[in-house]
């Protein structure tokens, strides 16, 4: 009896310890996950109670909503535009810094500063760099080599401009992850390869890349997930006086920007919830595919 009581008391302490976290977890994560799943099958504008409409929202999004497909296309362009470039360049940077070079920590810091800076601050800084006419720094640079000024934030170039800025901003973070991965590769493998007369390229292809695969998988999945959710950059770069997000003719409307507009500007919460679940679904599939690809490649 005494023992059972003691056990219960001990368990009570454990539940007390996790209680604050689980309260927050339940109210702001578990309940919301189910709430938005339910709302995705309803018409809901906050003021009136949700009205059940079955698969109507999903059908509308997938078959009758050109803006959704525009946003999806832009988002995919953004992912394809940022992820491979960022991975390639940050891997190069990590390998360069991993050499025994001077000022190593300085270089690390320089490349990492954008990663700690607020993306809002970065976006306003780049908006100024991209400024149209001759005062923008980029246009000035172009004109100094004889190219006429470009409208960086016009219909055609807004999305590419945001892509360039985002690659720049994300390099340092991926670099740190690759650096950790590189430092985890035992030096013996390189020495063995050298004994076998391997060139630098051979070493990169046959030692570095295969042994870096777990890091590569992690970086790729995380990069795709976060690129797919791009929002802040778009919000700042395309914000106009009417408060619309996404730019002229939705030229840079991304899927999360569209969700924001639907949910918090038009208060179509049911429709926005369905969008959220579609995002969830896509990211889930992307993760599964990535893991399958890597599983297949690790055979030796």
């Amino acid at each position: 009896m005494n023992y059972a009581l003691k056990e219960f008391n001990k368990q009570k302490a454990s539940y007390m310890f996790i209680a604050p976290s689980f309260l927050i977890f339940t109210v702001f994560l578990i309940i919301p996950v189910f709430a938005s799943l339910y709302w995705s099958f309803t018409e809901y504008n906050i003021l009136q109670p949700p009205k059940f409409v079955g698969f109507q929202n999903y059908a509308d999004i997938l078959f009758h909503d050109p803006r959704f497909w525009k946003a999806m296309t832009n988002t995919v362009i953004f992912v394809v535009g940022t992820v491979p470039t960022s991975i390639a360049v940050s891997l190069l940077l990590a390998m360069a810094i991993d050499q025994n070079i001077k000022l190593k920590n300085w270089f690390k810091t320089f490349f990492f500063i954008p990663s700690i800076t607020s993306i809002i601050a970065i976006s306003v800084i780049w908006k100024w760099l991209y400024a149209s006419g001759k005062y923008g720094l980029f246009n000035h640079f172009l004109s100094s080599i004889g190219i006429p000024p470009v409208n960086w934030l016009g219909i055609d170039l807004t999305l590419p401009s945001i892509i360039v800025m985002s690659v720049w901003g994300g390099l340092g973070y991926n670099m740190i992850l690759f650096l950790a991965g590189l430092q985890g590769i035992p030096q013996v493998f390189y020495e063995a390869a050298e004994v076998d007369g391997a060139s630098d390229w051979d070493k990169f292809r046959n030692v570095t890349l295969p042994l870096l695969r777990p890091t590569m998988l992690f970086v790729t999945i995380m990069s795709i997930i976060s690129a797919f959710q791009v929002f802040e950059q778009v919000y700042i770069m395309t914000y106009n006086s009417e408060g619309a997000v996404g730019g002229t003719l939705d030229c840079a409307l991304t899927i999360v920007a569209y969700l924001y507009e639907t949910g918090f500007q038009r208060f179509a919460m049911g429709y926005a919830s369905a969008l959220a679940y579609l995002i969830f679904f896509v990211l889930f599939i992307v993760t599964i595919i990535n893991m399958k690809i890597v599983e297949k490649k690790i055979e030796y």
Partner: protein
Amino acid sequence: MEMREIRKFNGDEAARPASKSKQQQLLRTFVYVFLVIGSFIMIVPFVWMIVTSFKPLDEINTYPPSFFIRKPTLAAYIELFSIIPMGRYFMNSLIVTSAITLANIFFCSLAGYAFAKHRFFGRDKLFLLLVGSMMIPWQVNLIPSFVIIKKFGWLNSFAGLIIPAMSGAFGIFLMRQFIMNIPDDLIDAAKIDGCSEFTIYRRVILPLIQPALASLAIFTFMGQWNNFVWPLVVIYSSKMRTIPLALSVLNGQFGTNFAMVMAGAVIATLPVLIVFVAFQKYFIKGIALTGLKA
């Protein structure tokens, strides 16, 4: 070409290290050039931000744009703090970020300790649920969280900004991994001495996990200082804005006054930069260990 062929043929061993080291030197030079140009590209936008923020308006609109300031001025900063209540926004950000950081240190370590060292019914299932929840993109719970906050009457308040972020799956996970490495003997010894569970947490666990707490604190501080989306949907009055929100409004309303917007960007960047430089060691190590995005 011919020379090389002959060398190869003769198996001239002496020539190889020489050419190898020359090649290595070339590679090294290339690496430095690559890194220096790269660093330059990283730094220039920030230098441009700082330079612009100290320029008088007429210099911003002179051609060609220059990194040299002829008459440096604090006008943009003075404007920033007089036209809009930037001081208040700074305090808002500081209050919200500090409160969230302290709460996370406390709640995550508490839960992390229970998950690492206690045995209780449902422990592993709950932990799995917690870890699994990290897969859920934030868009899924954004809308209901907003509605819940509205129901609680916490829209446009510190409570609405702070309470939902007071603990997190990632923090608990980090703490648990770290606390698992603490030997059970220490805890058992404290138990024999008659310490209560909370005393063990306070006197034994907390002092031992200080490096992990520091990492969690820095991540949380930076992530929250830069947080934008949640304040964007929760805050509607101008008084309650946090720094990133204020900066976005500044961009919308005074977008053409670049000196002022850049001064705002400097104010937004400075605190995280200071924290980063001061605690760089913990920060980069923490990322390498966990892959957390700030």
